[in-house]
């Protein structure tokens, strides 16, 4: 069930990116989609009542069995760390394109920015 809510968030972002006519809104839609995917990945690795995949002194002294049987999946976390930075990079590039376009056209409305046909 949490997966379905996460997918709903993804679809809301997709709706915003596809339907809206304002450049900043489109960027916002894409950002929402990225959040949804990141959340989905982390959820995949969650273990009920689990611990974070970081070993501290007390766990090391107690032997690692406890840690091994309760740690959540570290791999999706590594992937999401990568994905977050990628989305930040693409956000920066997208916003620069938006600002430059605004400077040229004086509007964020893509219905008014339509020099290219089809």
């Amino acid at each position, binding site marked *: 069930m949490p997966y379905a809510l996460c997918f709903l968030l993804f679809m809301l972002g997709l709706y915003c990116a*596809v339907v809206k006519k304002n450049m900043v*809104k489109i960027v916002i839609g894409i950002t929402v989609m990225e959040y949804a995917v990141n959340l989905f990945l982390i959820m995949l690795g969650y273990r009920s009542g689990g611990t974070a995949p970081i070993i501290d002194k007390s766990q*090391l002294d107690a032997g690692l069995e406890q840690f091994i049987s309760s740690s959540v999946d570290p791999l999706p976390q590594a992937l999401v760390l990568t994905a977050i930075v990628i989305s930040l990079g693409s956000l920066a590039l997208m916003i620069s394109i938006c600002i430059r376009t605004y400077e040229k056209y004086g509007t964020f409305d893509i219905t008014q920015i339509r020099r290219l046909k089809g």
Partner: protein
Amino acid sequence: MAIFYVLLLFMIVAAIIAIETNNLLSSVICIGAIGFGASLMFLFLRAPDIAITQIVVEVLGLIILIRATISRDLTFITGSKEFFGTVISVVIIFVIFLAGVQVFETLPNFGTPIFAEVPDTASQTYIKKGLDDTGAANIVASVILDYRAYDTLGEATVLFTSIIGAAVMLRKKTRKLPEDLNL
């Protein structure tokens, strides 16, 4: 468990407001709300690394987004909406949603991750041997900077690319004048 539903619903409500409001600034602020919701969610999902990264990235991302909207002439969206097109898109997206929701039943239930069910997955090895193999107590760090360091090189490169790209897009003079061309 309940906390996840609360946070997810909070994020969905914030997303709906962000999408439907006509004021770009409040839209951006709602994005901030989603981001902080996601950060809290990461914390409860036992991913402190991601929570920290998400929250700091969120702050910078908000600064970038606000920079795009503020100090522009219009922060309000005007203009008509194409009713027919919107309805069709909503219907299509709703159908994809209904089709997609079935898919999640093939996944293991929430709270019982796949890596613990299938024998010999990479993640199990990371947890068991991560400290011995790489010497890092933070298993996530050992994954991103040792086991899968190559991904991280790619990720740093993505950031580098986007910064160079942004510098290219925002440069002042873009073309040389014909008299400057010495061909």
